[in-house]
């Protein structure tokens, strides 16, 4: 069998990006393998690291010419969900070298970032202008901000999550045959510079005209186009930020509290963790985590109240008073601290990417996540379902963490079970995998909506919506007729 080095592929790729930006070293290729969820059917044959959009276009055109499968990747390892693992042998298009923060616009509270920009860098840059980056909860330090937004990962501030597409606004996309496109108001007329001169800021995510391809590429796992930059919303960096907790045995009570707080847009960051997930976020070693978890109530609601650029004290005061009234109404007890963290520490933790090791790996070194969208009122039911399944399958319920993140201003939520396991323990790994699969399937049957269908979830999610599958396949055919983009992912494999 010819190696990549001998194949024309590497040469042709090198012609585009230079030989130093193409690799087929096994250790490099291995770093794109996902966790246990990836179950690769194909392997990376090379990686290519373009530095700009023109190179991306050239790579895509080459892929069309040679019939290569391209798998876009932006974040660094570790990878969990298998999004970058090829279903068929293919070339990883590693976009991490495209790491410019093209613009941070304080007036309009918007930035343009390339795929290689990590949250840590983005945050530092935005804060220079008193702006806040909307982040998911404790992203890993190597996580690409753009990839996170493209994947519709939930951010921790539901109040500013007006729509599922937030905080992403416009984007530049290279479609499957190498065509360039820009979405929303970035589409034109005019270049970015022309638009900036006129005071425009690539802020309108809708369009151009009667389509919104930014929505189409979001959640597509790189199957419909490669995004080379995106404009994203920023918030005001708070002048005051106070973090509070509500610990409770009853999730129902916290859910009721959550509904009311979101109805009147009172809190900024707002999320619920169970004792294991909270302890994993706060402590580093497994022993510390277990000890800390013991001290926590079953559920901890964490929320922050912020004051911004005008009368921050006044804002914080009315919000605190409002929330306090709601808590009283529902019998929820608010505190400034929980075992292991006070307000300040918690605020620091959720304002930053995860420290190492990545928080979900701290307890046992491995994690299988089951996450989906649902409404807050249904979350207690899913917890019962998971507990029952875990007990039936002999998996310790105590080794499962829970994270509930209200999204779309509290209209629904990202619900995430974290099944911790020791990857070096084969039987435990097998049990975790079994629970992962069974829970995923069972919960889908109970109304869990796998809106970001990685790996085996694709079958689960798409078997339930044949009409959506039909249309997605047609769209795929239009945007990527030669199927060069992340072949076999989502519903674009043969079996669906």
């Amino acid at each position, binding site marked *: 069998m010819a190696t990549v080095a001998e194949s024309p592929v590497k040469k042709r790729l090198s012609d585009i990006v230079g030989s130093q930006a193409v690799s087929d070293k096994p250790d490099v290729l291995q770093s794109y393998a996902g966790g246990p969820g990836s179950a690769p059917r194909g392997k990376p044959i090379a990686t290519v690291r373009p530095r700009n*959009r023109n190179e991306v276009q050239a790579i895509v055109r080459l892929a069309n010419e040679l019939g290569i499968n391209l798998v876009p990747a932006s974040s660094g390892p570790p990878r969990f969900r298998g999004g970058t693992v090829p279903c068929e042998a293919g070339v990883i298009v590693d976009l991490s070298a495209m790491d410019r923060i093209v613009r941070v616009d304080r*007036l309009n509270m918007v930035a343009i970032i390339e795929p290689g920009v990590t949250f840590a860098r983005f945050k530092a840059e935005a804060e220079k202008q008193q702006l806040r980056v909307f982040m998911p909860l404790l992203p890993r330090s190597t996580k690409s901000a753009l990839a996170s937004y493209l994947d519709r990962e939930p951010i921790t501030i539901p109040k500013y999550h*007006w*729509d*599922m597409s937030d905080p992403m*606004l416009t984007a530049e996309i290279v479609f499957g045959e190498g065509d*360039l*496109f*820009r979405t929303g108001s970035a*589409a*034109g007329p*005019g*270049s970015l510079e022309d*638009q900036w*001169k*006129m*005071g*425009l800021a690539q*802020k*309108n995510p*809708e*369009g151009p*005209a*009667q389509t*919104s*391809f930014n*929505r*189409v*590429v*979001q*959640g*597509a796992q790189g199957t*419909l186009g490669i995004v080379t930059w995106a404009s994203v919303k920023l918030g005001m960096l708070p002048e005051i930020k106070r973090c509070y907790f509500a610990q409770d045995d009853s999730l129902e009570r916290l859910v009721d509290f959550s509904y009311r707080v979101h*109805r009147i*847009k009172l809190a900024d960051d707002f999320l619920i963790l169970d004792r294991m997930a909270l302890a994993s976020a706060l402590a580093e070693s497994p022993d510390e985590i277990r000890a800390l978890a013991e001290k926590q109530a079953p559920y901890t609601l964490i929320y922050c109240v912020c004051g*911004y*650029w*005008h*009368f921050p004290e*006044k804002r914080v*005061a009315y919000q605190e008073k409002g929330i306090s009234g709601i808590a009283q109404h529902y019998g929820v007890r608010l505190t400034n601290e929980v075992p292991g963290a006070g307000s300040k520490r918690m605020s620091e933790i959720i304002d930053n990417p995860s420290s190492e090791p990545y928080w979900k790996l701290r307890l046992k070194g491995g994690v299988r996540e089951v996450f989906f*969208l649902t*409404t*807050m009122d249904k979350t207690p039911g899913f917890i019962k379902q998971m507990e029952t399944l875990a007990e039936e399958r002999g998996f310790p319920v105590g080794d499962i963490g829970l994270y509930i993140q209200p999204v*779309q*201003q509290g*209209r629904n939520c990202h619900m995430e079970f974290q099944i911790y396991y020791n990857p070096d323990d084969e039987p435990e790994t097998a049990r975790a995998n079994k629970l992962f699969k069974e829970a995923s399937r069972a919960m889908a049957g109970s*109304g*869990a*909506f796998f*809106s970001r*269908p990685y790996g085996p979830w*694709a079958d689960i*999610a798409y078997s339930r*919506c044949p*009409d*959506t599958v*039909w*249309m*997605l396949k047609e769209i795929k055919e239009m945007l990527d007729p030669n199927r060069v983009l992340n072949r076999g992912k989502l519903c674009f494999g043969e079996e669906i």
Partner: protein
Amino acid sequence: MKQTGPSLISPPIGDEAYKDLEEAVGPEFVTREPAVLDGYAWQPLWNEGPEMWVHRPIAVVLPASTEEVQAVVKICNKHGLKFKAICTGWGALAGPRCENVVQIELRRMDRILEIDEKNMFVVVEPHAIGGQVMAETMRKGLHTHIVSSGAASSPLASATSCVGCAPDGTYMNWSSRNLLGVEWVLPDGEVIRLGTLGSGDGWFCGDGPGPSLRGVLRGRLGAFGGNGVFTKCALKLYNWPGPPEPVPEGFLYDTELELPPHCKAYIMFFPDRKSLADATQAITVEGIGYNAFKPGMGSLLTMIVPHLLHKESWKKAKYLKKAIQAFNYQFLEVLATDSAEELEFQEAVMRDEVSKHGGFMMDMEHTGMAEMIFWTFVLSSNYPIFFKAAGMFITAYGQDESHHSMVMASPDGEKIKQKWIDRGGILDDNADSGIHFMMEESTVSHYEEPIEFDHRNPDQTRTIKPIEMEFTHMQAEHCMESGITSPVMRKMFGPTEGFYTKWQKGIGNIIDPRGCADDYLYNAEPVEGEPLPDDPAILEMTEKLADIATKMAWTEDGPLE
């Protein structure tokens, strides 16, 4: 093809097709009576140029269910007819724009199917109008975004098919962003359900699994019925801190009802446009305002003293006009908050920004207008007033981007308007009527230029097309996409916006393989060799538009840098 004048009348529908329609929905819910059909062909609002009629539909049907809509669409496919849905029918966008169109009037599908109070959404059918949805949701302490065509319009139509912004946007977003689950009858008669609905998981999310088909369903504008029929959808609701059943006295300017606790109406004035832009941006990003917008003084005049604007003395009232112009940098804030402290905070921020920028603000209660302003905005009962002064209006520009780009563009719009006012082509509203409001606490800001005219006066109607063309030119100069498009404009400006037409047409081909939807406003190609109108103003502008479109067209490598 687009026709004009009497030729807008298609040959009658065939008996076989008509019989099929009767069988699909029942004979009493189909008509081909010419005078009845003309009720759907008279569309003077947002029509093209001097034309007030659109194509007369060949039949109108009144389906009562999704299944009946599907049956009608399939009959159109079978007989090679076009179809177009109409809801409340506000404007030519809703009317047939080509020959052989069966108009699907959705009036019988008017239910509010569910109000999910906790998860803050409402599920509606097409003809549940904004006023009805508001009335029912307010009872539950919730409110819904109503597009600035007002309470008579269909929230579903706005969310799925047609632009959709309003002064309530700062708190309640704009229509396309409020869409959750959707049921959509495609132009081949098949149904697709988006998001959670498609998976049987309820209405709460319209995106996924994986890529979101909401981006296929619509963009900034919506397909204006060119991509099928939307039969149900869920829309986001927002907090309403006022009374569950507000019952004001009066209809409009005579509105009387006490303001609810912690609610206010303020007007702020600024010394210049830049101050207005800076201050209102700063205020809005803090999340202030339930309804908030910059009215044009001209627009206010058309509402309050409509007769004055028709008088010769007004034309000559140079100093009065200047005095009025001086108050143009104003911003209206309708505040509806949940506590005295929140209200105090909002007021403090406004006061601070007004003071920083050398402006002043007035509590509308001191003017005696607070109740009227508050309730007519909260209930969206005010918008049709734009018809009062002249009989008809159009709104030009119609864009949404950063607040400063919108506000600072308006002087160019005023120049265009003034030119046509001077020529006697439109109502003299002092030309300073640019309207701005923000959505999502300033994610985008809107600019719209109302132009009022008497559509019964040929001297005025003939000016509308050239005015629209001038505004389109201005949009291009300001790097803004062209607005509501005709085939000619799409063809001209598609290349300036990344050749979007190629992809949009691709979607059209997927969902409408037999070309059954009336897609004049969506994907239709211009008719080759169609003679240009002989109006010199239109000819001149056609040339100018072609010129700027050519200059700004993308190459394969993107826009010219």
